[in-house]
């Protein structure tokens, strides 16, 4: 009787191990399919992002700008270096403008308020 018990326990153990092994293998492949699907989707998004970047680069190329803007509107290289200043304070220097956001963000950071939402692009 004891021998039968031992035999049954061994059979159950081996069967369980075999079932678990098969389940594990099945899971690996199931997850691999799911992962592969996501990887393909990710790659597709990266490729589309690259393509958009390429289109931006092409749209911003001098050939296009040169033909569309420079020739049509008689654009010339500036005779002196011009700087953009804010309309509110035309005397503020560019350097001062660059420093301004740091000061503001420090104050606002204390109260946990951001000046504005910022979107960042991630290089692939």
């Amino acid at each position, binding site marked *: 009787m004891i021998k039968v018990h031992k035999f049954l326990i061994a059979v159950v153990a081996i069967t369980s191990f075999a079932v678990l092994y098969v389940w594990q293998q099945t899971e*690996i*492949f199931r997850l*691999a*399919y799911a*992962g*592969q699907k996501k*990887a393909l989707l990710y*790659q597709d998004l990266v*490729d*589309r992002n*690259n*393509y958009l970047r*390429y289109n931006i*680069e*092409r749209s911003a*190329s*001098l*050939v*296009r700008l*040169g033909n569309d803007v*420079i020739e049509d509107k008689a654009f010339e*290289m*500036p*005779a*002196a*270096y011009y*700087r953009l200043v804010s309309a509110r304070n035309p005397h503020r*220097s*560019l*350097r001062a403008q*660059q420093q301004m956001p740091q000061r503001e963000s420090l104050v606002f950071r204390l109260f946990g308020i951001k000046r504005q939402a910022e979107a960042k692009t991630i290089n692939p």
Partner: protein
Amino acid sequence: MYICDYRCKSRAVFLFLFIFLLFCIARLLYIQLFRSEYLAGIARKQHNAFVELEPRRGTIFDINLKPQAVNVAAESLYAVPNAISDSQKEHIIQSLMPILQVDRAYLKERLYRNKSFIWLARKLPPEQADAIRAMNIKGIDFIKESRRSYPNGYLGSHVIGFAGLDNTGLEGLELYYDAYLKGEPGWALVLRDARQKKLDLRQKMMMPRDGYDLVLTIDGVIQFFAERELQKAVEKYKARSASIVVMDPATGAILALANRPTFDPNSRSSDKDALRNRSVCDLFEPGSVFKIVTLAAALEEQRVSEEDKFFCENGAYKVGPHTLHDHRPHGWLTFREVIEQSSNIGTVKVAQSLGPEVIHRYVKLFGFGAKTGIDLPGEISGMTKEPRFWSKTTITAVPMGHEVGVTTLQLASAVSVIANNGVLMKPYIVAEIRDKYAQVIKEFGPVEVRRVISEETARRCRKILEGVIERGTGKMARIKGISAGGKTGTAQKIEPGGAYSHNKFVASFIGFAPVDNPQIVIAVCLDEPRPYYFGGVVAAPVFKEVAGAALKYLMTKQATRQGVDQPRQVWHEAQAAY
């Protein structure tokens, strides 16, 4: 009786099962011991697939790190003709014709081949691929590839060149640096399921080594100025072809190089002529721009000074069987005026006083008749003759740019000698080779070939060449607010019979600016311009426009680099200096 029958039957069943079991065990043992290798091999073939991993081809950047050649994902469309019915093939042809913009015969020929795989279209842009995918046509599918794309179109196309369908460089830097750009492919052993679908579980793999990036000395903005002005001149004077080289005389770095006719590397035409990089591949007789060699030789050898006078025979000078002419009759001219007015007779008299050996020595010293060594494919060495092969009239031809063959790049390189105080620099077009992490793998810098003339001679030459623009034949090259020096050239072309043509000319101009501290050197050549053909009329304005715009741009760029608040000051200093 009944029990006996039952036992017999059960024994029979047991015996049958036992024998079957023995058979199974024997079969298993046979498979395991004798057939295992063979069957495992078949299984491996079914489940494993060897995949080549394509490396990323390196990007080409200009000096401002603006991309000039990039990789864009593209999808290639294929069909399985053997698995498609005839009615389905007709449906595919009707559906794909308008999207792929190909004729019916092309698709029909491909789809009716007895094959299990055939390309229908390679490297389609995403819009086209999406449109086809949306139609959900059975029997066709896509494979992802990468396509070489050039965001700036024709800008710098002769320098950058292009890569073929298999991403192998075919022209320009794409060809010259192909070994660096292409990288090394990797491989992976992936699993395949029962439907032969690849599963991205890699058992073994070797990662591909991505190609290195190139950073050029070309400045996209100056390149644009050069291309724009060259195009205007070609259209205005209906020139057959044209080329321009803009160079930094101090380093030999090429800032811009353009040719006409040109091509867009994204959609190359079948016109082979447009693909030729004329600046380095075509030789021509340069005409009067070559007088800079006689000028430099005469001053360096101290045979002549600027104020020495020469009688220019009132426009006609008989040498042997030939009579030399000036484009305008001159009497007595100083050496300075000989160069300013581009007098052939005066220049020949100076050359005769120097002798063939000296002239030839300086021709070679200035780099003519030898490759400059620029890192572009197809460069030719030009043509010069040893003095022992000179005829009696060669001494009258070579000093004014005949009986020699040069390239536009050689002219730019030669005038750089005068602009940079007498040193011949090796022109180069790639500044750095970087890996994908922006680490510099190889760096290229200025290479001094040799000293050609002394600093003092170079300074004196610059002053005389400044006079060419201020008072001489190059007045149309005068740049407002900036001093410049240069030399015009108008050379008759040789007809097929060997005689000089009277209606076909090569107009050229070589120059530098500013005179005191030249920042750029430009060589412009236009082939067969009409109706005007003088270098001072046709090519000089191109120099003026390109040099003016490029110098303003370079000063702005320099000012921007020096700091936010300094540009205005630097600009004022620069303008005051000129």
